[in-house]
């Protein structure tokens, strides 16, 4: 008997080296004679560069070179945007180093290359730049005003898109209930533990780029396109990468410039971001103004939903910038049935750091808007928020279900997840306590928030991506090789940066080939070792890349079967495969897969048409997205005297289909929920009216730590995905997507009797206190 590996809570193979500091972060790597690069960054949000003189820096000790944007003007190209969401979208030139105009604080205007970082940093202070200030554009609504200052010549509107389904006007006409709200998704700074870092070496002709990136494969293609260096002269390596959350799903100015510097100087060059530099220049997340209107019948049945977004692009469109908010088009309707639906989105340029994918990318925003407004609907008609959802959601017997926005959800069971969550949470008891505290006028009020989310992940069917104007496909590749000694090497096109693919893939392969978990090595993140791949983002790795691994294993097994049949002189159909051994049915005759791997290596006796080595490749392109869902419940205590919000309990019941490793799944949920709570209560990137980022350090940009978070009670229901043979859906972003509205709903629920019906995120103590104070001034009930 062998134990089945899939489904086991295996400890991660990755952890020992992470915990004992034996990791290969890019900053731990070096090359002989490496030079260090530091960037001078614009202190102005918007200005013309009237003069820039780097000569003072060049003369300092240890400085090898100093350049301004002028020096790269002919060769630096424009940073790519791969997702032109509309035909008439405005994609402005985006020079990696500003040449004549800066458009956000932090934009690189010059660089110094020196023998060490300290000298490079000192030399930055010797560069002279004269800026001619131009007006900052900070507020999206003002940016769209006709006579306001412009970020780009073409104006401040990047694009406008609209999706309509059903007769929205009719549905709103004489609807008994209409809710009209505006919510703000604050700007967030993805804060991966490892800052960005880039190292580039060259032999004079070809280049190796080590970068703390999520996307070595995509980066290689894009660097070739941007710089004109032929793709086959570029090798990109993502060594150990310490988190990304989307922020390392980017083709960055620094990656391009380091490559150009290595070419120009013929020497290895390295750059490591400082934390404050990262807060300024790692692409930001969220930043939307969401106008939502919902029409319903008196019993709470939704007639129509209308969502109108303003999405802050920042100063330029980066790799996926416009695609992030527009993902909401398919997601705002969420798990609910309705007669009509309209989604509109306008992308707006401002003089701020560009936004782009951040954990959840478009789905947290969409989930927030619908889950918040469902609570408003419940309050409006005086029905429990869970009950309102029940009246509107797709029932489990209605799957597969094509939604109003056009996606087909393959599987799910919202009833089951919700029932489980309610009972784990002790919903009725907490409601009773809430009432009791209200009656007593307890200064500490209890609030209960629910979020019944779904999301689309497993990016993605290439066909659908093409239809959405996305610049690439969504397939994934794997190569499974049995070595001469019977061990297994898997090369995966996914690029883990903390997710644990090495462990999960080992479990999948161990079961598929009947080999020990320990005998499997997983290689990734190097375009020379894994030539094909589309990398890791959008909770795609397992649902796409994991399936490619399964497919490659199936091919290896088929080949092994032919070889075994040949060696044991039987028909392949006479063979049984179990626990890594082929047995001729009804006999004692058997060969282990390891023996077969060796036979394929020696190749002394192969059947006709079978090539040496027991290995195979597979590429998987899914038919459909996958749709995890679940029910999250949050109880908060709000101190009405100080405004402080404390999370008292948190329950998450998620349906992510089949589970490969429950320990990894729990880890993803813990981190995801923490990040969603962080948006609800703690984090906010703040720019002042002049476009200066005020939250450049962690003293100002508050990240919660374990001490600020409750224990999470996690459980799962399981409706396997039908879109892939593993039945898996993806869990990388679910926690983040679900948790933010659960928490804010809880905060508002606590204060609703006092007339409060929204608190802008993050719900800081000061904001809560001010909301209460404002209601008190207005004389209570609102």
């Amino acid at each position: 008997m062998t134990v089945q590996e899939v489904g086991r809570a295996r400890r991660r193979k990755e952890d020992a080296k992470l915990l004992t500091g034996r990791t290969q972060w890019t900053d731990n790597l070096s090359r002989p004679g490496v030079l260090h690069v530091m960037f001078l960054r614009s202190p102005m949000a918007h200005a013309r560069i009237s003069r820039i003189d780097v000569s003072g820096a060049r003369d300092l000790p240890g400085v090898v070179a100093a350049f301004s944007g002028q020096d790269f003007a002919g060769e630096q190209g424009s940073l790519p945007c791969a997702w032109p969401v509309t035909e008439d979208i405005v994609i402005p030139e985006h020079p990696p180093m500003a040449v004549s105009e800066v458009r956000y604080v932090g934009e690189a205007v010059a660089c110094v290359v020196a023998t060490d970082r300290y000298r490079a940093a000192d030399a930055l202070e010797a560069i002279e730049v004269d800026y001619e200030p131009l007006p900052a554009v900070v507020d999206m609504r003002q940016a769209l005003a006709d006579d306001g200052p412009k970020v780009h010549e073409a104006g401040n509107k990047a694009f406008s898109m609209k999706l309509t389904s059903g007769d929205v006007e009719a549905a709103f006409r004489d609807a008994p209930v209409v809710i009209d709200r505006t919510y703000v998704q604050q700007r967030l700074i993805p804060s991966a533990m490892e800052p960005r870092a880039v190292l580039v070496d060259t032999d004079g002709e070809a280049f190796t780029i080590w970068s703390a990136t999520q996307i070595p494969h995509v980066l290689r293609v894009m660097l070739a396109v941007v710089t004109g260096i032929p793709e086959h002269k570029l090798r990109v390596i993502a060594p150990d990468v310490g988190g990304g959350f989307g922020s390392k799903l980017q083709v960055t100015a620094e990656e391009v410039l380091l490559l150009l510097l290595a070419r120009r100087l013929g020497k290895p060059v390295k750059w490591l971001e400082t934390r404050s530099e990262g807060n300024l220049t790692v692409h930001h997340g969220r930043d939307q103004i969401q106008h939502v209107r919902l029409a319903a019948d008196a019993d709470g049945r939704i007639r129509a939903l209308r969502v109108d977004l303003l999405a802050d692009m920042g100063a330029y469109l980066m790799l996926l910038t416009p695609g992030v908010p527009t993902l909401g088009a398919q997601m705002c309707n969420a798990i609910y049935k309705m007669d009509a639906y309209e989604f509109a989105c306008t992308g707006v340029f401002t003089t701020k750091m560009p936004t782009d994918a951040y954990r959840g990318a478009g789905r947290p925003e969409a989930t927030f808007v619908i889950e918040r407004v469902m609570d408003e609907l419940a309050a409006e008609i005086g029905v429990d928020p869970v009950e309102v959802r029940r009246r509107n959601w797709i029932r489990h017997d209605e799957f597969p279900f094509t939604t109003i926005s056009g996606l087909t959800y393959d599987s799910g069971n919202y009833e089951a997840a919700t029932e489980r969550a309610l009972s784990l949470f002790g919903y009725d008891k907490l409601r009773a306590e809430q009432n009791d505290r209200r009656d007593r006028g307890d200064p500490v009020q209890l609030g209960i928030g629910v979020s019944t989310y779904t999301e689309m992940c497993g990016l993605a069917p290439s066909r659908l991506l093409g239809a959405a104007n996305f610049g690439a496909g969504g397939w994934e590749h794997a190569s499974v090789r049995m070595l001469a000694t019977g061990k297994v090497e898997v090369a995966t096109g996914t690029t883990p940066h903390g997710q644990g693919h090495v462990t999960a893939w080992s479990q999948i392969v161990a079961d598929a080939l009947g080999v020990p978990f320990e005998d499997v090595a997983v290689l990734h993140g190097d375009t020379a070792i894994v030539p094909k791949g589309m990398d890791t983002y959008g909770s795609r790795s397992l649902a796409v890349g994991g399936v490619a691994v399964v497919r490659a294993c199936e091919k290896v097994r088929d080949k092994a079967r032919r070889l075994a049949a040949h060696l044991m002189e039987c028909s392949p159909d006479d063979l049984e495969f179990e626990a890594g051994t082929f047995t001729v049915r009804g006999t004692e005759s058997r060969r282990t897969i390891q023996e077969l791997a060796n036979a394929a290596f020696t190749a002394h006796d192969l059947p006709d048409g079978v090539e040496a080595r027991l290995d195979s490749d597979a590429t998987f392109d899914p038919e459909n997205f996958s749709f995890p869902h679940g029910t999250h419940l949050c109880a908060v205590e709000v101190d009405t005297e100080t405004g402080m919000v404390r999370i008292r309990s948190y329950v998450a019941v998620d349906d992510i289909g089949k589970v490969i490793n429950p320990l990894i799944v729990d880890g993803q949920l813990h981190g995801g929920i923490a990040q969603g709570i962080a948006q609800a209560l703690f984090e906010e990137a703040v720019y002042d009216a002049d476009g200066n980022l005020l939250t450049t350090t962690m003293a100002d940009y508050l990240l919660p730590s374990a001490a600020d978070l409750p224990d999470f009670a996690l459980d799962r229901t399981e409706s396997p995905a039908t879109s892939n043979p593993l039945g898996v859906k993806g869990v990388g972003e679910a926690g983040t997507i679900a948790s933010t509205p659960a928490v804010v709903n809880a905060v508002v629920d606590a204060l609703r009797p006092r007339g409060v019906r929204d608190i802008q995120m993050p719900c800081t103590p000061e904001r809560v206190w001010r909301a209460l104070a404002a209601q008190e001034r207005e004389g209570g009930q609102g």
Partner: protein
Amino acid sequence: MIPAQFDYVRPGSVAEACRELASDEDAKALAGGQSLLPFLRLRLAYPSKLVDIGRLAELKGVHERGDHVHIGALATHDEVMRSPVVNAGCPLVALAVAQVADPAIRHRGTFGGSLAHADPAGDLPAVALALDAVFVAASEQGEREIPAAAFFVDYLESSLRQGEILAGVRIPKLGAGWGFHYEKFHRTAQAWAIVGVAAAVRRSNGSIAEARIGLTNMGPTPVRAHAAEAALRGAELGDQVRRACAEAAAGTAPPADLHAQPDYRRHLAEVLTGRAVRAAAGAG
């Protein structure tokens, strides 16, 4: 970020350290480095020279001295927090120190460094002020004593002179009948106080005989809530205390920053002073 260039010396005695500091007006003492190093890295400070006093045995340790506790400037937060002498002689200090930053920082940051840094958002200045601590400054000329009320001059500015080192702090023991509490209001466990209240309260017969209240982050320096202290004298627990604590922010000029505007800080000072006083008085 990366600090600008500086020299580094590690003197073998307090006298030598004072000489180093006196001879160069841009030199700075380096203790635990938990405030100074971030300043250097953010290039908010450009000292010419760091005088590392971190290993000077004369400045270490916590000492029982009869009517007061002497805390050496180099005693780490962790050491102070665990010290039986501190917990017995001046428990308010132990209560507040336990709320400074996190364990890693408490193992490096020093009691003297926290006070010499004179950050009004630090938790210990308000405590030292509330307890009328006496600061002992050492220089080439010898030692001088500075009362807490005269130590904190302005934002990040103490009355230490160039060439002076804070050698230690004397915390007078308050007699029997006193209760203590430090109420820190912050958004995350590792964050600085938005407002903090250090309260020492002596009760007699169900009312408050005497209260000393120090406020954290309610102005450019730590401040005593004199008006509330006066109003609390003789106040009975309950409404009288509540009314008295509503005076807590009187005369303060709290800062505006990303975490709080001045009016909110004033409100917090009132609420938190009420809580601190009730807790110190043993009334929960």
